């Protein structure tokens, strides 16, 4: 269950500057637990103390915003691509 995770500039302090890291997990929640074991503090930047996604962070699995696919319970499969991005204004 290998998943590729794209890390935004602002969170690369947790990945030694790496732009793309590998992780594993059946769900997004499990993936962040796995990532945090190697990239200390990363999960805490994305997930709040209450266990939800940080208001100003968007997470996508294969380009779909996970807030519409089950949030942190979104299931993952081998080869999925996960992207983390800060929320920015459009318009």
């Amino acid at each position, binding site marked *: 269950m290998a998943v590729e995770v794209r890390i*935004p*500039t*602002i969170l690369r302090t947790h990945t030694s500057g790496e732009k793309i890291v590998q992780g594993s997990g059946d769900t997004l929640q499990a993936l962040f637990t796995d990532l945090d074991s190697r990239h200390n503090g990363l999960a805490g*930047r994305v997930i709040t103390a209450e266990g939800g996604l*940080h*208001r*100003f*962070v*968007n997470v*996508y699995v294969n*380009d*779909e*915003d996970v*807030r*519409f*696919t089950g949030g942190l319970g979104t299931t993952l499969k081998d080869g999925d691509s996960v*992207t983390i*991005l*800060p*929320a*920015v*204004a*459009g*318009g």
Partner: protein
Amino acid sequence: MARYDSILDALGDTPLVGLPKLSPSAEVRLWAKLEDRNPTGSIKDRAALSMITAAEADGRLVPGSTILEPTSGNTGIALALVSRLRGYRLICVMPENTSEERRQLLELYGAQVIPSPAAGGSNQAVAVARRLAAENPDWVMLDQYSNAANAAAHTAGTGPELLRDLPTITHLVAGLGTTGTLMGTGRYLREHKPDVTIVAAEPRYGELVYGLRNLDEGFVPELYDEKVLSRRISVGTSDALRRTRQLVGEEGVFAGPSTGAVVHAALVVANEAVRDGRRADIVIIVADAGWKYLSTGAYTGTLDEAAEALDGQLWA
């Protein structure tokens, strides 16, 4: 009747055109609502007129008032036209990584442009404008991100026009910026056609645009209510440009890059409908035409060259 008393009276009631070549089958059809056929060439004319009219009605705007607005371009240009005709001074805070055409158009309509830093995208423009508004209490910041009159323009106009022209609509796909288009049109369609699917196509820019100093500088428009949406699809620069070229190449619709992102998301939805054997009438919102982006390189050279040229630009 196609005669109007003034340019502002010609706003809205835009054409809905079929996209027979991009549509995967006779049962799964794509339709384009041509919002570039508005007075300044973008869907933002609807929001601009609505916000100014509402501010006049509640007394915030009086003749000679100064309007201040953070904008990546289209809203500013639309506000500039209405301001010029109604006698207001307009100051726009615009990120410096937007196309040259937008700045020229703003100045042509008489607006003053204050540039904001490229890094951080529109977030920085919003932050600069909110600071200027605090320093100049007599200026009126309409604030397209929180102004209910932005979304209301689409509940009153875009939504009813779509249902009138395509009663069989199953999906609406539009770009996500201020979220006004999707919130306003989406609410109207959900109320009158509860089974409709509302899809947001969100531009995914180059890294520079996401260069915030900390996550708390992030921004979610006050207008945004995720319950109105069914799904939200992120579309990168390359896919957006490829679809923009496909749209003009196959259907003759010359649109801006943000519409390419919308087409990309619409084709995801269309292909799923084909796979599942469902009928679909999918509306894509063409927010603007390509004219304002010619200088960016979006339409020339290879796709890779174009994507590279737009990297770090706010192309939607």
